[in-house]
Structures are given as C-alpha cells and as structure tokens.
C-alpha cells in the first residue's frame, strides 16, 4: 500500500477483555515496529520484527502483550486481560532494508474502561 495502515483507528474495550490491533506495513518493508504512546509522552518501543521473526521484544511490558507477523507482512499486536493502564495510542512503523527512517501509521487509540 501507499502507507502504513492500522486498524481499527479507535478501540474501546472493557477491562479484562482481549484485543487485537492490526498493522499493514508499506509493501516491501522488511522491518516492522510497534510503539506505544501515552498522553504527553514520546512513543515508547514495544517490539521489532525483521521478516517473520521478532528480533527484539524487549519493550513489551509484560506477558499480556504479544505480537505476530506470520508471513512477514501484516502484524497483529495482541493484548490479553486488558487493564486501564494499557490505554494509549499504539503506533506501528515500517522501514526498508538498509534505512533507519521509519514510516508510521496513524495509530490505534485504545481505551480500556
């Protein structure tokens, strides 16, 4: 596609529920990143994929968070047993081989009530 696409753009869920956030990167970009941004803060790194494998998941806050990229393109961030503190904008980015500039999607605003 022309840019990084994230769905849904907004998600409201009840505490304790499971949610999935989807990211469709720019076609041909091998690297895919998930970030989380709380109000008034800069984005914080969650996980990075190079191809299908998670090259670095050191930013995932706990084992309730999990992400997959089974075919090396679309990625899904999965959050189990959501908590109110998980409320944030979840940003996905992709970059091409050999480049460090990241192209971001518009994000998914997750609200846990």
């Amino acid at each position, binding site marked *: 596609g022309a840019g990084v696409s994230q769905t849904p753009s907004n998600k409201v869920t009840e505490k304790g529920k499971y949610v999935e956030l989807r990211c469709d990167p720019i076609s041909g970009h091998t690297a895919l990143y998930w970030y989380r941004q709380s109000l*008034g*803060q*800069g*984005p914080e790194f969650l996980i990075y994929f*190079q191809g299908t494998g998670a090259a670095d998941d050191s930013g995932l806050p706990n084992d309730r968070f999990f992400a997959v990229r089974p075919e090396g393109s679309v990625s899904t961030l999965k959050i189990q047993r959501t908590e109110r503190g998980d409320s944030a904008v979840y940003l996905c980015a992709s970059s091409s081989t050999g480049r*460090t*500039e*990241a192209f*971001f999607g518009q994000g998914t605003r997750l609200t846990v009530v």
Partner: protein
Amino acid sequence: SQQGEEDPQALSIQEGENATMNCSYKTSINNLQWYRQNSGRGLVHLILIRSNEREKHSGRLRVTLDTSKKSSSLLITASRAADTASYFCATPLLNTGTASKLTFGTGTRLQVTL
C-alpha cells in the same frame, strides 16, 4: 525509557517567526532523526542527520548536531500555521545495524498563530 529531552516542552510563536527546538540525548548515536506529529496520531519523518554531520538543511528546516554535547537543534524558518504540531527527536540504538528501533524524546509542542 526516553532517550532524549526536548526543550522547550511548549513553544508559541506567530506566523512568519522562526521556531527553534532543542534535543539532548544520553548515549552514542549513529544518527539522529526529527519527526512531526499532528494531533497525537501518526508521526512523519522530517530529517535525519548522521553522527559525522554538523548541519543539514531541508526546505525551511535546519538541523544541527553536536555530538560532543549530545545535543541537536531543529530550526523552522518562516513558520506557518500548518507547522503547528509536536516535534520529536529520535535516535536508533547504536548496535542495531540498519534497524531503526528508535528511542524518542518527550517532544516540543509548537503552536503557530496567525
């Protein structure tokens, strides 16, 4: 954790004036990037400056980098109302090769009024 700190946290100027934002970071870097964010959603890459560069221009943007002070500045000349946004500096981890796992600063919120 945040790598850098932007200064000021907020800046309000009139259209036509110049806006200067500063960023300090903590560790050695390969490059430093500036991003813009409108309305708290997607970020847009503005400019990248490498560690062996001291100054770089792109249109109305001018970026400087001082690796000895671990600081960078972003200057927007002849600002427009459309420049109203949050601006973030970001640095990739030194040991990740070409990967762009980025660490962002806290951002400067720029307001340009008519």
